[in-house]
């Protein structure tokens, strides 16, 4: 999609692995698109499906869920529960008429900063390809329309 569409996305990270991977990506100065805004949870197991639905309904075009690799969960095995939930969730949103690809599960250990950055980059491209999410009554979309009107008046330097 080359219409300059810049999606806004929410990423849920695990405090022990993927959040630290994000830190590592930073310290190693790996560049990746700014579209994903991260939220820290203690564990991917904390992911309440309503968080994802909330994000999508509130204007996010995609949601990324990240956690420790299977078998490496800081809390022993909770990431498996996250895995199951995400699978169900994908089915649910599909039934709601939303592309399941808008929700993505990614494993990233604390050492995989580059990997995480890479995954984020890919996901942003995938969502760009999918285009904006037309969630019924997406408030952000309404907001954007208003802005466009605003922008007509003031000419940017």
């Amino acid at each position: 999609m080359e219409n300059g569409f810049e999606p806004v996305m929410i990423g849920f990270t695990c405090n022990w692995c993927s959040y630290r991977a994000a830190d590592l990506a930073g310290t190693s100065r790996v560049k990746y698109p700014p579209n994903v805004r991260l939220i820290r949870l203690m564990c991917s197991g904390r992911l309440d499906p309503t968080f994802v639905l909330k994000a999508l309904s509130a204007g996010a075009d995609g949601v990324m869920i990240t956690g420790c690799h299977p078998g490496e969960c800081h809390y022993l095995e909770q990431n498996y529960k996250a895995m199951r939930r995400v699978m169900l969730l994908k089915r649910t949103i599909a039934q709601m008429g939303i592309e399941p690809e808008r929700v993505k599960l990614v494993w990233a250990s604390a050492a995989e900063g580059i990997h995480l950055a890479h995954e984020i980059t890919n996901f942003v491209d995938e969502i760009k390809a999918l285009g904006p999410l037309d969630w019924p009554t997406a408030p952000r979309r309404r907001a954007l329309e208003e802005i466009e009107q605003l922008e007509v008046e003031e000419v940017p330097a």
Partner: protein
Amino acid sequence: MSTENGRKENGRERIGVYVCHCGTNIAGVVDVKEVARWSKEQLGHRGVVIARDDKFMCSSLGQELIEHDIKKEGLTRVVVAACSPHLHEKTFRTACSRAGLNPYLCELTSIREQVSWVTSDKKVATEKSKAMISGAVERVRYHEPLDPLKVPINESTLIVGGGIAGIQSALEIANAGHPVYIVEREPSIGGHMAQFDKTFPTLDCAACILTPRMSEVGTHPNIHMLTWSEVEQVDGYVGNFTVTIRQKARYINTDDCTGCGICVEKCPKKVIDSEFEVGIGYRKAVYTPFAQAVPKYPVIDDENCIYFEKGTCKACEKFCPTNAIDFEQEDELITLEVGNIVLATGFDLFDARRIPQYGYGRLANVFTSLEFERMANAAGPTEGAIVMRDGHTVPESVGIVHCVGSRDRNYNNYCSSICCMQSLKFAHLVSERTGAQVYNFYIDIRTPGKDFDEFYQRVLEEETLFVRGKVAEVTDATRLPGEEGKLIVQVEDTLAGKQRRIPVDMVILSAGLEPRRDADDVARQFGISCSSAGWFTEKHPKLDPVATMTEGVFIAGCVSGPKDIPASVAQGSAAAARVVSYIEQGELSLEPVRASIEEAMCSGCRICNDLCPYNAIDFDEQLMVSEINSALCQGCGTCVAACPAGAISGTGFSDAQVLAQIEGLLMLNLEEPAVMAEPV
């Protein structure tokens, strides 16, 4: 601004936002002044009363700035936009509490690691920073004052494994005046070190330095030994573990036994000792593994004892001067209450039979490193004589093979780290005691420790021949004259670039170290994690090598990977220090990130009960509701997410906080809608 999802609005907050330049780390990419200005202006209606930027928020000046505002401006919440919480969360929380604000009312958002360092476009970076602050502001509104959890620490410590690492830990803790239980699977403590002859690089005799420590453990008033015992079950949490231990039947009444050894002497049944003598020596059916065993009491091996086989003999019973033999004895289950646990269960030796081309088990004169240690040991089956499998012939030439089962993707990828020095030690012992020509076959010589390379030099001076090449095969199939009756080591001499066949009388395989066969079960039992290879995982490989992700469970020695004796001892002491510091604190304060169940809302469906990996959730049969043991709870939040009634809330990560942060990040909270980031 929506307040759905039954979220509890915390009245009108006074929020301070602090944007850090971090020198140019942030300010070089993010327009920090604009971000601060914007926060005040756009988020004012959300409670932001102050928004400042500062060169270094973490500096004492920066912290004082926050403290000042809390006092003067009566801030009720603080948001710091700087680096990762994993670096400075504590710093700013402490600053808050100094100013009298509950530390948990402070939120740190990482615009360095997540914005300035990973984004090149300044405009976009600035926009993303705004969004993240907006998210933090919304989140912090739903923060609640928290107090760290206090748990009392039981003074006793359990140490699993009586090798040198465990012994060191036990003595350190006991000498600090605290009770220690040490559980050992074998009849005696001592571990692998007790099997060794000399120790590299100093060549002091293992027994001479180990046995004093062993007897110290045996006689220490604060140490209670449980040998011939294994941990059966572990319950509880840091400070308050309940451990069940199975003490296997010794068939010897230890109160009466004097360890005189007459029973051993009189026992008619001789069996191959596949444990302590690793199969190259014999022992009786009633035995102590070795002379200096601690405790001194023997054990009756009921698989080989004639009485247990045929119901006759009882020679030991007849001759025991104190009637200490008790064939009726049974396993005993012992329950201990301890505050901390140190796992020092050590390693297993790589099974050299897995490499058939090296001939171990097929070719008589191929020995493993442990077999050689026993042979070289003055108390071993050959009284220290280095001889071939026939029991008397002294070898004229010996080949020592490095990296057996290590640095090999067919077996173990890792380097076992002790084999080089061990092999050099073998080379020295062989030439010293037999004058035989010694060959060392190596891929790389790794001698990084103190005085290690000096020892290598010494062995070179002793005219041991070094062949750089991983041995291809050891065979008795002759090819050339002079090979008859020899073992032929076939190898590429990679420095000469030629294939060589070197006939020797004896081959010693420096087998690598592997995790204990049952490492996975043990890890599960104690609620800690293993690497893919099976070594226990440290809390932090560099900065916290003896702690695990499970509070109160520490690791020492080879459980976390191959180590030599000094390193294992150092870890034993380190683990002890960690334990003692916990004990000294009397109680431990834990992050109050915990789940709790609102009784009124709990339907008693028990869905959460099985979800908890720490069994922190119990079901109250009377009230028909589930309840969470906050000390057991580690705060992962899985139950919170799963509760269909929404009865479980997770402090620090409540639904309200996360949902608010989502709205904030998506800029739904602005009076006039935000301009979305548009990268150029």
